[in-house]
């Protein structure tokens, strides 16, 4: 595979921004470049210039482009110890002061994280006290999230995670198997509102007690991370919680001093300054 030049990536991101309104200029370079290489390979396109031409001439190719550029790999109860802390410390902490709890899944991908949340809240007996908003840039993946159908192979891992989370039941209690797919009980997400939302340019649209944005900002460079974190700060009630992925850190971000670390291992922070 030939090395993709930064200059042609710049032309591509400018073109996409200008014509379709998606802004990838501040995505982390190495993974973005690999995503582009992958698209070129998958669709037999031999240069970034030709990819631009294809986006220009084929009306719907931008949708395919978004589907392929985003990394949707996810799991239910990813990092089980994180979910235990959420259940045992964070959520009870929120409920001390609020009757209802407002949660935002930013970058929810195919919904595994949302179903995990719903199952956890149900087991805590407070699913009906929660307002949950789940957003993603990729509209296609949002549709899949709402269907809640996962392969049995993925369910093996999900079940293992659930066991390590130490839930009250068996994960099988929450789905039925149809056509070799696990179909999650739709009642779990009847309260969830799924919306397409672009973290790069989206405004602050609501206030939350808890924001989960895990394994999403790793695809951004530090400038963009800073911007997005500022908006998360603005979208949290005072003393609201922010959870990021286990390999992310707020240490270097501009707004770090407005958060305190609640759990460093699980990367849970709390807004304590406006």
């Amino acid at each position: 595979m030939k090395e993709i030049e930064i200059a042609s990536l710049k032309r591509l991101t400018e073109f996409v921004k200008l014509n379709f309104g998606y802004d990838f200029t501040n995505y982390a370079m190495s993974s973005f470049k690999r995503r582009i290489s992958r698209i070129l390979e998958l669709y037999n396109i031999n240069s970034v210039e030709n990819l631009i031409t294809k986006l220009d001439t084929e009306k719907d190719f931008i949708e395919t482009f978004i589907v392929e550029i985003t990394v949707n790999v996810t799991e239910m109860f990813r990092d089980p110890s994180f979910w235990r802390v959420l259940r045992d410390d964070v959520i009870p902490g929120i409920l001390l002061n609020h009757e209802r709890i407002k949660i935002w899944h930013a970058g929810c991908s195919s919904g595994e994280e949302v179903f995990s949340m719903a199952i956890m809240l149900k087991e805590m007996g407070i699913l009906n006290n929660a307002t949950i908003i789940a957003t993603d840039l990729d509209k296609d993946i949002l549709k899949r999230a709402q269907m809640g159908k996962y392969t049995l192979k993925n369910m093996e891992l999900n079940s293992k995670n659930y066991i390590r989370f130490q839930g009250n039941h068996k994960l099988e209690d929450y789905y039925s198997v149809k056509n070799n797919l696990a179909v999650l009980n739709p009642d779990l997400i009847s309260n969830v509102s799924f919306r397409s939302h672009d973290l790069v340019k989206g405004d602050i649209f609501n206030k939350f007690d808890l924001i989960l944005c895990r394994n999403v900002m790793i695809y951004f460079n530090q400038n963009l991370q800073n911007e997005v974190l500022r908006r998360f700060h603005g979208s949290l009630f005072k003393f609201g919680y922010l959870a990021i992925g286990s390999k992310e850190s707020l240490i270097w971000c501009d707004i770090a001093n407005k958060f305190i670390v609640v759990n460093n291992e699980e990367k849970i922070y709390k807004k304590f300054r406006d």
Partner: protein
Amino acid sequence: MVKSQLHNRYKAIVIGGSAGSFQGVVKILSNIPENFPLPIIMCLHRLKHVRHGFVEALSIKSNLEVREPYDKEGVKKGMVYLAPANYHMSLELGNYFSMSTEEMINNSRPAIDITLGSAGYVYKDRLVGILLSGANKDGALGMKRIKDRGGYTIVQDPDECMIPTMPNAALAVTEIDMKLKVDEIVKFLLDLAKLYKKY
């Protein structure tokens, strides 16, 4: 082969390893002194859902601090960095790490090709790439990328490897500057370190 490229312009050492590489890695880390003048960046195949234990196991043997870096953490000399479980680890222009969870490569996440390849891109001829024992071909293309960008390439001598598939795959796709036994790799790194002033 056997053109020894010892000079003090290298910026980093990157090491890939899989099945049968643990002993070699331990030997390397236990012989490298505390004030080693370069960062050592490692991508080793590991269990996908075991977050803990590996850093600790390596730390016991290492004179240098071993850590799994955070996303966007800067690369510092005298540190050993280990790719975390279930994330690909890349180097970025500007000399920092970034993580991603994209598809597995050669059934691996972290994939050695990604760490080695991105390091090759960032450090060009200022990089030494080392590939140890392993049972698949992950890392071969990464080594090729390092070579293509002017870096220096070393594989563990296949005769010494518990499972030589990985070094052999690299030998098949690109020019490898040296085949070395682990003891010789250690010696190479120690000789290299002597060329750095403040060392």
